[in-house]
C-alpha cells in the first residue's frame, strides 16, 4: 500500500501543530491508544515506524541463525519443532511489515534499506549459531530476554502494534519452552553434550546480558516519557531477565562464568560485569561478526525468489480472464 492509499485510511498531517501535538502527548500519557486512522504527529509516526521496522527486520534476520540448523537437527521431532519456530519468526516479521505498509512504509522499501544497510536489525543476530546447543540457547534465552520487551509492547500506545504483540508474545512462549527443553536434554546428557551446552552459554551469555540495550535512564528515553511506545527501561528488562534466567540456568547444572554476577539483596538488583557498550556501536555500522554474510544471503534469496513474487502478483489472471473468488 503506498502513501496515497494509506492516506485514504487516515488523515495525512501537514505540519505538526504544537497545540495539537501537546494534546496528543497528554492523551497517550493518559493511556489513549492511537489507531491507524487517528491524527498523529509526524515525530510519533516516524518513531513508531522506526521502532517497528527494527523489530520486523530483527525477526526476519534472526530466523537465519536457527535456520542453519534445520538440516542438521538431531531428530525428526527436533527438526519439526525448529521449523515451526523459524516459521513463527518469519510470520512475526510479516505481521509487522504489514503494519508498516499501513503507515506508508512499503515492505519493498523496508527490504531494500535493510539489504543496503540503511535500516538496522538487532545486533544480537549479527552472529552465527556455531552448534546445535547455540540454536537451543538462542531459542531459550534470547527469546526470554526479548519477551520482557515484547510483553511491555502489549501496552504500546500504537494500537495495531500492541495487538500484534499479543500473538507474538504467545508464540514466543513456545520458543522459550522449545529452547529450554533442548538445553535441558544436553545438560542432562553425556559429558560431551554437557560441554556443548556449557560452551554455548559461555559464548552467548555476554551477548544476552547486553540484549536489552544500554541502561538509558528513563527520563532520557522519549519512547517512554513522551510517546508511551514502551514503558519500562532497558535496565528494568535486563533485571527481570536475570531474575528469571539465572536460577533456571543454574538448575540445569550450567555455570554462568561472570565473577561479578550476584544478587544484591539489599538493593534487590542483580550485579554483573557491565557489557562493553562502545563495542556494540560497530554493529550499527554493519560491522558485526557476521553482518555482511547475513545481508548478502538475504539479498541473494530475494533475487533468487523474485519469480515467486512476480508470479503471485499476476496470479489473479488465469487464462486471460480475471478471477475473483472472494
Amino acid at each position: 500500500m503506498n502513501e496515497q492509499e494509506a492516506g485514504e485510511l487516515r488523515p495525512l498531517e501537514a505540519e505538526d501543530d504544537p497545540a495539537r501535538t501537546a494534546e496528543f502527548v497528554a492523551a497517550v500519557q493518559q493511556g489513549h491508544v492511537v489507531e491507524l486512522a487517528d491524527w498523529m504527529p509526524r515525530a510519533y509516526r516516524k518513531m513508531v515506524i522506526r521502532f517497528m521496522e527494527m523489530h520486523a527486520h530483527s525477526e526476519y534476520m534472526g530466523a537465519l541463525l536457527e535456520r542453519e540448523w534445520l538440516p542438521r537437527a538431531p531428530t525428526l521431532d527436533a527438526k519439526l519443532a525448529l521449523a515451526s519456530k523459524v516459521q513463527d519468526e518469519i510470520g512475526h516479521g510479516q505481521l509487522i511489515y504489514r503494519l508498516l505498509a499501513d503507515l506508508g512504509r512499503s515492505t519493498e522499501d523496508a527490504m531494500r534499506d535493510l539489504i543496503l544497510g540503511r535500516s538496522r536489525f538487532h545486533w544480537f543476530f549479527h552472529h552465527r549459531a556455531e552448534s546445535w546447543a547455540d540454536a537451543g540457547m538462542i531459542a531459550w534465552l534470547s527469546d526470554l530476554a526479548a519477551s520482557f520487551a515484547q510483553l511491555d509492547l502489549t501496552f504500546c500506545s500504537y494500537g495495531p502494534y500492541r495487538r500484534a504483540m499479543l500473538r507474538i508474545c504467545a508464540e514466543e512462549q513456545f520458543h522459550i519452552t522449545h529452547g529450554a527443553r533442548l538445553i535441558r536434554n544436553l545438560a542432562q546428557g553425556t559429558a560431551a553434550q554437557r560441554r556443548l551446552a556449557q560452551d554455548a552459554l559461555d559464548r552467548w551469555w555476554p551477548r544476552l546480558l547486553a540484549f536489552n540495550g544500554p541502561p538509558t535512564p528513563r527520563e532520557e528515553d522519549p519512547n517512554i516519557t513522551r510517546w508511551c511506545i514502551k514503558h519500562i527501561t532497558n535496565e528494568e528488562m535486563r533485571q527481570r531477565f536475570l531474575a528469571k534466567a539465572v536460577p533456571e540456568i543454574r538448575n540445569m547444572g550450567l555455570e554462568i562464568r561472570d565473577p561479578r554476577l550476584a544478587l544484591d539483596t539489599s538493593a534487590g538488583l542483580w550485579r554483573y560485569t557491565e557489557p562493553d557498550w562502545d563495542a556494540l556501536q560497530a554493529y550499527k555500522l554493519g560491522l558485526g561478526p557476521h553482518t555482511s554474510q547475513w545481508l548478502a544471503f538475504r539479498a541473494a534469496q530475494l533475487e533468487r525468489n523474485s519469480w515467486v513474487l512476480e508470479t503471485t502478483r499476476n496470479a489473479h489472471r488465469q487464462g486471460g480472464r480475471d478471477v475473483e473468488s472472494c
Partner: protein
Amino acid sequence: MWKAAETEPAGRLRVYDIFGSASRKSAQIAYLGSLEAPNAALGRIYAAKIFARRAECRRIWIYERNQLEQASTGELVFDFSRSEATHE
C-alpha cells in the same frame, strides 16, 4: 457494508483484513490482522498459515480492504439523547 471488489491492476497485491474467532473456546469474532495476497484463494491459505496454524481460531473470514465502505451517518441530526456519557 461490502461492495464488489474493484479489479486491481495487474502486478498488484491486494490487502485483506482477517477476522476470526478470538480463541479456541470463544465464539467472539475479533480482528486478527491483515495480509497481502494476489487473490482471495491465496489470501485464505496465507490467513490460515499466519493466524491459525495452531488452531487458535476455529473459523476465519477474509475481506478485501477496499470493500470496506463508510457507514451512513445521515440520522445523526435526530440523535437528541447523545451525550458524552454514552457517545463519543
